[in-house]
């Protein structure tokens, strides 16, 4: 295989890491909403932790994206 082709395929494969981050962030926001609708009075106090969790999860996906960008360079 041509190295340039392999590079592009590799960058595409590296981006599959974002699938996991997508599922993770969706789970976090979905579960927050789920909990907030069951107990709206406790929702406000926990909103910050939802954002922290989303940020942590998102980072792992973004690392995959950064790897893809490094490969493409």
């Amino acid at each position: 295989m041509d190295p340039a082709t392999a590079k592009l395929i590799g960058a595409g494969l590296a981006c599959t890491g974002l699938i996991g981050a997508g599922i993770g962030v969706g789970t976090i926001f979905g579960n927050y909403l789920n909990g907030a609708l069951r107990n709206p009075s406790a929702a406000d106090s926990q909103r910050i932790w939802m954002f922290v969790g989303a940020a942590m999860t998102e980072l792992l996906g973004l690392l995959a994206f950064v790897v893809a960008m490094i490969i493409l360079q």
Partner: protein
Amino acid sequence: MHQFELTKKVPLELFGYDVSFTNSSLWMLIAVVAASAFLIMSMRGRSLVPTRFQSMAEVIYEFMAKTVRDVCGPEGMKYFPFVFTIFIFVFFANVLGIIPGSFTTTSHISVTFALALTVFVFVTLVGFKTQGVGYLKMFVPEGVPLLLLPLIVVIEVISYFMRPVSLSVRLFANMLAGHILLKVFAGFVIGLGLVGGWAPLAFMVGFTGFELGIAMLQAFIFALLTCIYLNDALHSHH
């Protein structure tokens, strides 16, 4: 890519280092000036019934103050100016970067890493100032079996030193990804021409709005994680 390229506006050299005034510096300066102008001008009236701009500034201030108070407790309000400065700078840098033709300073890891390193060093100093040597207890969680302790301490130390990396990569990758996506879709608009180019153009308009949300959210998350690190430094409940 063209929009991420640094160009020298005023070439300068100091002690053998290249300290040129680049377009990145220019947009950072614009962000600082815009933030200062916004906050100073909007709070000039100080009326009891706020004007439109004053209420905007008050909402942003109250929002960050509430976050710091919730996360760090009342002691943390001493460091509120630091958190608020970080927030407002990142916020303005992100939002100004969405303007077509502008330069997104936060899409460069050198800028975000410098910001994150400032936070990291500041928080470490605050930790040692308030807790003394006891701050090192943060690396030794309570209730861990003695056998596992060497492993846990190593992991805790590594995770502590990864903080500036994770903080900077998060902001930089978010900004970079959004702008690259817009760029890719802009390529589709040109490629499909007058016939089919309208669909990606419509998507781009919508996605720019989404990017605006991301810009605000990432500024908030940057400030929020600063608060959480500050909380670790101020309270020894580890």
